[in-house]
């Protein structure tokens, strides 16, 4: 097992950081900064196959299996949405498919986002997590469990 934070720890850390901010304006700024921190998305994967369905903005998510762990690249043409996908990626980055599949379903709630962004569905937070699980299922078939 790796020495990095667990999914629960990573989630808690982001939730606490957001929680500590004084208002939603600050939180949105923080979310957008996280988006800006994403590694540049590889242009060769800016293809419709890697668009997440059910998001209004375009959200690309590309998974790659490295030593049994999934590494994600992500991008979006909307700033807050990009921040949201960055948060999700930060929580799920470089984990085994098994870890991802064992992750709790209420990450948006744990992050405090589901309660305050009624856009949970529309912003695609749940679609993003669903897509990550789908990739984990697909990629787990290629790794010993």
């Amino acid at each position, binding site marked *: 097992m790796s020495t990095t934070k667990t999914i629960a720890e990573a989630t808690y850390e982001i939730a606490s950081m957001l929680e500590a901010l004084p208002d939603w304006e600050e939180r949105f700024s923080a979310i*957008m900064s996280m988006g800006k921190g994403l590694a540049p998305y590889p242009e060769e994967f800016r293809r419709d196959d890697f668009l997440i369905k059910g998001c209004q903005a375009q959200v690309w998510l590309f998974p790659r299996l490295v030593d049994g762990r999934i590494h994600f690249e992500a991008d979006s043409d909307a700033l807050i949405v990009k921040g949201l996908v960055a948060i999700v990626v930060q929580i799920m980055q470089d984990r085994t498919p098994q870890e991802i599949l064992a992750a709790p379903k209420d990450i948006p709630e744990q992050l405090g986002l589901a309660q305050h962004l009624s856009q949970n569905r529309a912003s695609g937070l749940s679609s993003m997590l669903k897509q990550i699980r789908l990739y984990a299922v697909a990629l787990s078939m290629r790794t010993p469990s």
Partner: protein
Amino acid sequence: MHLTQPSAPLLDIAAIRTEFPILQRMVHGNKPLVYLDNAATTQKPTVVIDSISEFYRQHNANAHRAGHVLGAEVTSMYERAREVVAESIGARADEVVFTRGTTESLNLLATSIGARLGPRLAEGNIVLTEMEHHANIVPWQMLRERSGVEIRVIPLTDDGALDMGRASQLIDASTLVVSCVQVSNTLGTENDVSTLCQWAHAVGAISIVDAAQSVSSMAIDVQQIGCDALVFSGHKVYGPMGIGCAFIRRELLSDLPPYQGGGSMITNVSFDKTTYADGPMRFEAGTPNIEGAVGLCTALQWRNALDLRDVQSYKKMLTDELVAGLRLRSGVHVHGAHHGHSGIVSFSIDGVHPQDVGIMLDTHGVAVRTGHHCTMPLMKRIAPQGTVRVSAAVYTSHDEIAQFFHALDRVMKVLL
């Protein structure tokens, strides 16, 4: 702003607002709801909500075939609703078909007209506009797939109006149908549908008007428009969901084959041969949504009790306020230049994705819509990422517009 209401002295907006219970709602904890998504669906006054409860508490039965007292009551309520729809648009009751909404009305028309035209479709064309809602595009494309009919599209001028010069060329001797939206749900543009209908008639084509957005504030008269059909949804005119209408001019109605099959739309059924009813019932297969018709009837009566000229001047004022306020802000672009009294304004902000705006406005309690507004072809032309659309109703207050701008400024500060 509050002091300059000279053109709408008769509307007491504060009083009207008390009739809409949802306007009291708080969202996200303690923020008063500012509902500016009225082009998607309007809110319902208490009289409409109560008419539905009352229907189920006192009358509910199936219409037409039931001879008992509830059946008789409900049948007359349903037929009364048909009369009220007819009166509200200058039609006759036997020209009004109840449907689930605008979308179903247009599917009904495309299918039945398609079946009626038969082989003529392969040689003919159907004229639509670049600003149509998907509901007035896809049914015709499905007909095109079945028949090979050509679809022609009237383009927009750069300021968001129909290019009537091109329209006059596109409508020609092989045009079979002209179908056009009266007020664009994305741009707020009010189209000159009566001229289009005239041109359609001059070449013997059937003319259809999508009045989904106009019926809530415009006085509609199908005789004056001169259309063969006109469609709208109850839920966009203060009425319930699941009900809508198609006005179909008598001569056309009696000429069209049925759309769906089932109870009520028949005169005789045998496995060998079935014959169909005359009149609107031919198009109303199965148990109708009587609740919906009753609610729509109440909603139209509520609408008709307002002076529609007052409603229009008030909504014009709100629209102007929105357009002016948006234009004041740098980096903000208002789409289209012909909003009239629609209450509908779409805008974009340089370098900002509309969804980011929507997400953030929502946390302030301000409900707008972002995206393609079911008008993708139009979007591809004016704003590929979609727009932010603000849409006001008669119960929208100047105060809410101010709250919208206040929230928008805070959002822009974060985003830019």
